[in-house]
């Protein structure tokens, strides 16, 4: 499949350059990771080494290639290909290449059509974007990366102050069962309206997911003064996909955490950015994600961890307990772990440098993730360094994640 995409891209690149626009970025990334000594994965690893090792340190060499080919008549082919080679300590090297975008765009003046794989983000905000209803990209990463687009059909209309958009995402999955289109893989029809009222951007959203049903949302962004921007976003959902723990014996024979369609819920975000002169900025955001596990769910998770740790005292059941503890890391695979979160980011940007410190705080259990990052940006070269620390009280979810510390160093060169 990847070979076919590469062949297609090479054919595009061989077309006349006068009607094309190409860019590339080459990045070498080094990851230093320290496993946590707390949490279910650490406990499982202590009981049965190798059963659930945290992701080891490693390196990634990648090239991101962007190309737009104008075919005449307002039609253009746009592609974004990621060629990535990852090597993790103690593991064979792996190919992480993928096609981020490959779509056909047709410019009909105020009407715009697109078909193919495309990155699409609609919501305002930084730490969480509940109204990115076509595609939820991973937020608050240590190093920015173009997300992988979704297959879609898109119709948009633009004038000076308003925009209307209708998108059918994952149309090829429409007839498949719910189990085969969970989360971001769900087929859906989504619509957005946008209008500008001076300093205020207003957005309205509607989505119908194949098995999660209807959801509606709204968002705004407002420049409230020379130094202050405020934004908000809210969404109400009929159903959502999320993790559910199957009832039964604590020592399960298969992973008791499975994706399921859960009822209702709301998501919202409030935020603001203050810019203190040309070099300093402070971003503050608070959000609620009703699709994340509830406090009750996490208490049950914590109780199960304790039961499994007690069971592990029995040598005969130690292996099974270790496996079940490893499965307890399953619900970590979510956009938000706790429902209520507070995020702050302070950045200082004198000329070519950006120094930033940010923290994600969970008021429910006082867990926190703190990151310190430094970036230097030259005419072509960019250097990034980021250190992230996971912590909080022993029973905080963030303190029980597989990693205690993560260091990222990267050098990128643009062509």
């Amino acid at each position: 499949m990847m070979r076919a995409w590469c062949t297609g891209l090479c054919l595009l690149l061989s077309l006349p350059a006068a009607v094309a626009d190409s860019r590339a970025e080459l990045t070498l990334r080094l990851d230093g990771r320290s496993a946590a000594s707390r949490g279910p994965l650490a406990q499982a690893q202590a009981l049965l080494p190798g059963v659930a090792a945290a992701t080891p340190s490693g390196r990634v060499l990648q090239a991101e290639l962007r190309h737009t080919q104008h075919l005449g008549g307002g039609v253009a082919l746009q592609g974004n290909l990621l060629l990535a080679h990852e090597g993790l300590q103690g593991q064979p090297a792996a190919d992480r290449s993928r096609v981020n975008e490959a779509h056909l765009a047709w410019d009909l003046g105020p009407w715009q059509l697109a078909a193919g794989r495309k990155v699409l983000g609609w919501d305002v905000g930084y730490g969480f974007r509940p109204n990115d209803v076509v595609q939820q990209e991973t937020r608050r990463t240590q190093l920015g990366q173009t997300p992988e687009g979704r297959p879609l059909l898109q119709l948009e209309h633009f004038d000076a102050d308003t925009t209307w958009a209708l998108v059918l995402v994952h149309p090829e999955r429409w007839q498949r069962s719910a189990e085969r289109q969970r989360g971001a893989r769900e087929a859906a029809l989504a619509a957005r309206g946008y209008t500008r009222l001076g300093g205020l951007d207003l957005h309205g959203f509607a989505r119908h997911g194949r098995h999660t049903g209807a959801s509606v949302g709204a968002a705004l962004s407002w420049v409230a003064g020379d130094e202050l921007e405020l934004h908000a976003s809210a969404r109400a959902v009929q159903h959502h996909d999320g993790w559910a723990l199957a009832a039964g014996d604590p020592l399960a024979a298969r992973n008791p955490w499975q994706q399921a369609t859960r009822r209702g819920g709301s998501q919202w975000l409030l935020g603001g950015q203050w810019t203190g002169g040309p070099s300093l900025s402070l971003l503050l955001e608070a959000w609620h994600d009703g699709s994340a596990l509830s406090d009750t769910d996490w208490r049950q998770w914590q109780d199960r961890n304790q039961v499994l740790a007690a069971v592990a005292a029995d040598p005969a059941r130690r292996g099974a307990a270790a496996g079940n503890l490893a499965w307890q890391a399953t619900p970590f695979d979510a956009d938000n772990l706790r429902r209520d979160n507070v995020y702050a980011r302070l950045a200082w940007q004198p000329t070519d440098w950006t120094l930033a410190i940010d923290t994600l705080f969970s008021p429910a259990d006082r867990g926190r993730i703190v990151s310190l990052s430094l970036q230097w940006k030259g005419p072509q070269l960019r250097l990034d360094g980021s250190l992230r620390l996971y912590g909080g009280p022993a029973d905080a979810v963030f303190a029980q994640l597989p990693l205690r510390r993560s260091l990222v160093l990267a050098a990128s060169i643009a062509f």
Partner: protein
Amino acid sequence: MNRITALLALLLPLACAHADDSVGTLLKAADRYRSGADALQVETQVLTLGRDGAVDKERRYTVFTQSQRRSLVLMRSAAEAGQKVLMLGDDFWLLLPGSQRPVRITPSQKLLGDASTGDIATMNWADDYTGTVAAPAPCPAPDDSRSCRQLSLQATRKGVSYARLELWVGQPRGEPVAAALYLQSDKLAKHARFVLDKAGTQVDEMLLHDALGGQRQTRVRYLSRTPRAVPEAWLNPMFLARNPALE
């Protein structure tokens, strides 16, 4: 005495109105040396100079300046390729190539960089400033052999990059010669000097000297100016977020 007071009361508004007209006329004359048309495509090169005067950094921009204080800046250099800044009156958006969403930015954020987006995209003073004009006097050094009019200008709206300007225009044509640019806090941010082309008909270069401590110099060169009105949709931030081809 009462007659004199009454006469003064009648004449003072007329005198003030005349002063306003003079400032407006002088600013419009100065603007003609910088833009020359309502709708323009301007290819711009920005060179940041080190303390030794050597070029430290080069950036390229395409700037579309349109009527009603609307501008679109396309970043052309490899490090910034695909980035755009849209300015609609007092409203500003930043668009990044890897993202499908425009980000609202504040007027303060617009000031980031050696030559801020506002420096590059603003080609018009007459619509944004008003003030007073002083009697003819020597221009600031190194142009002090020539005669200038000094305009003390205050911004008439909040979204402009500089709240206050001291602008010197040459006598008798009214071409811009030099400026002192002040922030909202009334701190002096930059000194500007304007260099005309050989024909003396338009500004070829703007030399910016950072007065806030960096002591850096930036040379903004206008490589070409072409009259061009862009489609209305290009001035919609959501349209630009699609990363369309803008040629």
